């Protein structure tokens, strides 16, 4: 089997969904040319009326996807930049997410937002480096952050089949990950976590690309500390059952999350564990600072993101 890249996995999930279901369609900027990667070649294969290059009108094409979903389509929107989600919070949260409840279940909005390249990319600075998954989890929108190519395929495939709106964040720092895939790619249930590495001393909950950092640190510390690496994959709904089971084994918790500290998903994980689960020591979380805006200079940018050093230190602190 060949090496599957993360971006190619997203591309395959889109291809398979478009081929399997005529109601699936894709909207986005420069998706015909496949500029961001996941939509490469789709327009040639499925036509410009299903893979639709949109003008630079985020609010209109997101609202449009809501209307198309209500009328029986299953739209996927690719966003070029994570911060464009701030422009369409109205369409996603006020309209798409609230529709089912407000109509008493008359209908729902099966709509997927795909954000390939979320988080920091070197040199992209303040307005292009947000990783706003916690906002959507907070609002109650189904929020997925796959870390590996297999999960990227499986979670995007599941998102497209889901009857509710879903946002899929593909972290920029994970896009380069490749996997030697010898198994059948398949949808992965939304809300199921994955334990990448079993351990007995401490559970590290790592979100998105940070799973790879956590695995590297766990390997480094293997002689000294047994680290379990827990990837929630879905931030909302979160697989609390699996986390409780992990903490039954380890009793100690570190969360590493590349979003802002206050009201971030890391805070939610720590709070829920403290309220409901077995903890033998105070938990720790590693995040961006409160209200962070990533500065341009690479050293400054990196200094605000969770680092392996911080993770190593936090692990040592909780097992002490």
């Amino acid at each position, binding site marked *: 089997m060949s090496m599957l890249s993360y971006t190619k996995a997203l591309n395959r999930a889109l291809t398979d969904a478009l081929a399997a279901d005529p109601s699936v*369609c894709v909207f986005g900027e420069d998706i015909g040319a496949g500029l961001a990667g996941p939509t490469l070649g789709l327009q040639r294969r499925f036509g410009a*009326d*299903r893979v639709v290059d*949109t*003008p630079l*009108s985020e*609010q*209109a*094409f*997101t*609202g*449009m*996807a*809501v*209307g*198309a*979903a*209500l*009328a*029986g*389509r299953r*739209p996927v929107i690719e966003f070029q930049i994570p911060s464009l989600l701030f422009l369409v919070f*109205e*369409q996603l949260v*006020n*309209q798409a997410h609230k*529709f*089912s*409840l*407000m*109509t*008493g*279940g*008359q*209908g*729902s909005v*099966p709509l997927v937002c795909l954000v390939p390249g979320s988080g920091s990319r070197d040199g992209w600075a303040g307005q292009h480096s947000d990783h706003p998954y916690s906002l959507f989890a907070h609002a*109650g929108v*189904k929020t997925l952050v796959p870390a590996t190519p297999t999960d990227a395929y499986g979670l995007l495939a599941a998102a497209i089949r*889901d*009857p*509710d709106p879903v946002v899929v964040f593909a972290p920029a720092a994970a896009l380069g990950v490749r996997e030697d895939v010898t198994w059948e790619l398949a949808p992965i249930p*939304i*809300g199921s976590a994955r334990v990448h590495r079993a351990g007995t001393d401490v559970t590290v909950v790592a979100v998105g690309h940070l799973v790879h950092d956590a695995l590297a640190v766990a390997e480094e510390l293997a002689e000294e500390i047994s680290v379990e690496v827990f990837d929630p994959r879905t931030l909302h*709904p979160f697989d*609390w059952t699996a986390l409780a089971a992990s903490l039954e084994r380890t009793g100690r918790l570190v969360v590493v999350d590349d979003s802002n500290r206050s009201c971030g998903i890391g805070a939610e994980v720590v709070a829920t564990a403290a*309220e*409901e689960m077995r903890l033998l020591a105070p938990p720790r979380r590693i995040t961006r600072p409160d209200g962070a805006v990533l500065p341009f200079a690479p050293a400054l940018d990196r200094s605000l993101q969770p680092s392996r050093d911080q993770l190593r230190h936090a692990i040592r602190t909780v097992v002490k």
Partner: protein
Amino acid sequence: MTDHRTPDLSTLLGRYRMLRLIRGFEELALTLVKSGAIVGGTHPYIGQEAVAVGVCAALRPQDRITSTHRGHGHVLAKGAEPRRLLAELTGRVGGLNQGRGGSMHAADLSLGILGANGIVGAGAPIAVGAAWAARQAAEDRVVVTFFGDGALNQGVLLESLNLAAMWRLPVLFVCEDNGYATTLPAEVAVAGSALGRAAAFGIPAAEVDGMDTEAVLAAAGAAVDRARAGQGPGFLRCRTYRYQGHHTMERRMKVNYRSAEEVDAWRARDPLPRAAALLDRAERADCDRELAELLAEAEQFALASEHPDPAGACDHLYASGLRPRAGAVA
């Protein structure tokens, strides 16, 4: 009882009947706001009935609409059952949305009513998307989006006009210009003109007397025919007026931004007598009597319908059946 789900707006009597129904419904709603049976108040449509009735008279059952925060007239004219709309306003299980939506979110998907909307301008892109989807599915459907003069200043409306025009979608943009966005007069808020906004995108636009049902129907009919024939979107500016305040709360707040003379001048152009004059007296009297009964029955139905069980407050939050975690942990 007659089947009120398919209002016949194809005749003069049918249109008169709907004008009266909306007026009567809104008057009843005002009394229920006063009595406390409707919590939170409503945005009365009284005065603007000719727009909803004229436009919906140009539509077929399979056509769709998106509505506004002032949506009762649109929702009734598209065929929603008055008693279920009233039950929705009173927050009851028998309501269109099982009491989950209320006045500003009333919807009936089975009738193509994609929802009233609490966000000004938000219905426009939804209508564009529904029109796009209908064309994808080779379905013969036109979509109307109603909005006020306030929405003319929402960016999303302009983006939507552009997409609809670029892609020649079967959408009719209906600007229900009642001269005010809450207390702000359109003349100090809208630069250029409503028609100019449509013209900028190459969308054929017409101006029509929004107090005259037949004039609205004629203009809407022409635009809907064009859209159905694949000739792209249309834009209608209906100049109209609301006799009541922006919201039923307004009276209590004692705001005053319109002169009594202005209100009276518009009342003198009321769409009801104009429509009534086209009918003979016996027809009218029968219709009025029947509607009085219908509304009394609607009120009974709404107030007899059960209040929803708080245990189900999060029902329908997710179509997948996902249950949210409770806000408190025991």
